[in-house]
């Protein structure tokens, strides 16, 4: 008869979370800690995300990473690889298999002063967390008149183009962008993967961070020193006033939140895309250029808040627009963009705003996805329909 019995697997009393037994830790090959890369590097999109988390965790001990298989394994896409090895099991740890539990716990941890960055393993497996997302994550700040803010990030690998089986390819952004209180970001380049994730982690408000799986292993050269220079030692965007709260001004210029970018200059028509569709849009613009038509590409990247200014300035400069997105088009982000552009740029438009989106069907089986996804040809056909004869 003693006091409370201690579960046997809990070998390290100081480690609160997901601690493997010493025996298992000894048997498994130790994952290498995230390396301290500097200077100009060729990185994958996934590695850029990985470094963003490592740097944010280094800068701020309140930043925690957890989810399913994110610890020892390093995530099914290896985005969290080496974080546990570098920061320990109290900073990056595996959770039981329960998405609502992950997000609900993250909510409480954020209330308790932490800055959780949680991973949902796949787009469709974030749905069990939907109630927590919509009823609490999105509403807590408003409900409490700003007295309880939830600085948490929900990373969700999303969208298709990888030949994934059912439930692994959903473009689920419409659910989140329709929910006031959420910030919704989706980077499309390696540099943005780093910067936008750090901006998300630094945000005082909850961020749904949608990672296009298709580009996880695309590579680009980035100057890490320059990217890091955007942040203070504490992890805040350097351009932001330290308080951030009370100046009542616009978002600081150095944060990417709320900003779209022109990904490719062009003069004849504007392709508006985000996430996995940006690369397709750029490919379409390259093909069009060879055929003598100059297409501009805007990468929306911040779905909420939406950068009306940049998007509309781009559309006004060309007078024609096509919106491209993988998700089914009905009641979608693409529908919202088309409506906004039509309302705001009507007098600059030479043609109706067109959309190239997924069909209004569930995400198809791998052998059918080529017929579903927006393609270069489909985009160029839409461009051809923009009333050039006038």
């Amino acid at each position, binding site marked *: 008869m003693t006091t409370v019995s201690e579960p046997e697997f809990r070998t390290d009393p100081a480690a609160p979370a997901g601690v493997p037994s010493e025996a298992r830790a000894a048997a498994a090959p130790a994952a290498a800690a995230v390396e301290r890369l500097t200077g100009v590097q060729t990185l994958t999109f996934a590695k850029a995300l990985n470094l963003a988390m490592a740097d944010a965790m280094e800068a701020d001990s309140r930043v925690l990473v957890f989810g399913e298989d994110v610890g020892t394994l390093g995530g099914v896409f290896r985005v969290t690889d080496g974080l546990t090895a570098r920061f320990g099991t109290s900073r990056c740890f595996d959770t039981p298999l329960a998405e609502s539990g992950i997000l*609900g716990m993250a909510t409480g941890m954020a209330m308790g002063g932490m800055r959780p960055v949680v991973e949902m393993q796949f787009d469709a497996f974030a749905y069990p967390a939907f109630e927590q997302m919509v009823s609490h994550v999105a509403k807590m700040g408003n409900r409490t008149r700003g007295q309880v803010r939830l600085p948490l990030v929900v990373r969700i690998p999303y969208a298709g183009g990888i030949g994934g089986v059912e439930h692994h390819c959903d473009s689920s952004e419409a659910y989140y962008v329709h929910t006031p209180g959420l910030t919704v970001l989706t980077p499309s380049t390696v540099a943005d993967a780093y910067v936008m994730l750090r901006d998300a982690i630094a945000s005082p408000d909850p961020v749904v961070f949608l990672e296009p799986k298709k580009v996880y292993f695309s590579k680009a050269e980035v100057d890490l020193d320059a990217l890091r220079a955007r942040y203070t030692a504490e992890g805040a965007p350097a351009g932001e006033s330290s308080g951030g709260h009370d100046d009542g001004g616009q978002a600081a210029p150095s944060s990417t939140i709320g900003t779209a970018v022109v990904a490719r200059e062009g003069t004849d028509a504007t392709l508006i895309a985000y996430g996995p569709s940006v690369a397709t849009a750029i490919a379409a613009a390259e093909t069009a250029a060879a055929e003598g038509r100059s297409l501009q590409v805007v990468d929306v990247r911040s779905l909420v808040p939406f950068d009306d200014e940049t998007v509309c300035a781009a559309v006004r400069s060309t007078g024609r627009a096509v919106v491209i997105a993988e998700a089914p088009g009905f009641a979608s982000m693409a529908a919202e963009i088309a409506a906004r552009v039509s309302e705001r740029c009507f007098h600059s438009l030479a043609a109706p705003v067109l959309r190239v989106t997924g069909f209004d069907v569930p995400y198809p089986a791998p052998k059918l996805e080529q017929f579903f996804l927006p393609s270069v040809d489909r985009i160029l056909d839409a461009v051809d329909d923009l009333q050039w004869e006038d």
Partner: protein
Amino acid sequence: MPQNTIPDGEALLLPSGEPIQMIDADGGAVEQGGWKEPYVRPDDARLLSGYEHLVLGRRINDQAGALVRQGRLAVYPSSHGQEACQVAAAMVLGSEDWLFPTYRDTVAVLARGVDPVAAFQMLRGSWHAGYNPMEHKVATQATPLATQLLHAVGMAHAAKLKGEDSVVLALCGDGATSEGDFHEALNFAAVYRLPVVFLIQNNEFAISVPLSQQTAAPSLAHKGIGYGMPGERVDGNDLAALLAVLGSAVDRARGGGGPSMVEAHTYRMQSHTNADDATRYRSDAEVAQWVPRDPLTRLGRHLAAAGLLDEDVEARIAAAAESVAARLRDGLNAEVEVDPQDLFAFVYTEPTPQLREQSAFLADELARSAGATIENAEGGLR
């Protein structure tokens, strides 16, 4: 508390054979029998202070019902009959601990120190939370069932990571135990060995649905063992037993012993809310059986027998409760001023450009409307 008699392993995880009771319905002391832990009855001074909270809680429940009838509150889910659970939940916590209540737990929220007029703003319809959760470490009253249990787990996880020894007490009803978040919360709490106490107020009904249609488990407290955490059942109308059992669970959590769940067996004496009609699903005779088990009369008799409660003390306690009720009444009778710009002000830390546009639109609309009397309407968000 002597620790050497607390059982190990499964015996600790399973609840005692009967709900723990220390004071019976007539106010008599109950001797220990079949308790798995050596629970210690709180001393009478503590019970007297608890009794004051019970009387206040009952008065608040009555007052809130009246305010609904007068149209001052939209609705009120009363905890009439459950006041002992409400009061115990607050009394076992220290100032650094956290409480995660539901819509039915307003009395517990007040017992923790939240201003009554503030706490009732949610039901009054002026804003969703009503009070600042950070001030008294009381989360907002959750309506989506069982969701708050996970927030409690997260709060406890944060405390543990920060090396604090605070404890979190989370409340839910018997119906909420069927929700997935209940399962996820208990499982997470146990896996991470977090300092959380889950108090389930089993008031026998989830709106109209009786407990027998929520679970086939021998008792809700038996669910604890499935998660590897101690479960206990307690007479939910016996403040002494509640304080002892919850106090033990809080001590265990604070000492690093992990989470516990406690099922308090009580009864919802009134309809689910004023909008509900309980006669459609239960008989008056059933309700009448619970009247003699009332938590107030029972503790009152006990304290009177112990010589701590006479007419004078009773009158003083009633007067104190009356003055809080009067303050609540006055606070809710005063016209509430709302600022339409509050629609936009708090959705994000900084309003988005779209919200600024919409705020300016509303400000302009209000300025143009002939009947606009609301101040600060011009110009929208600043």
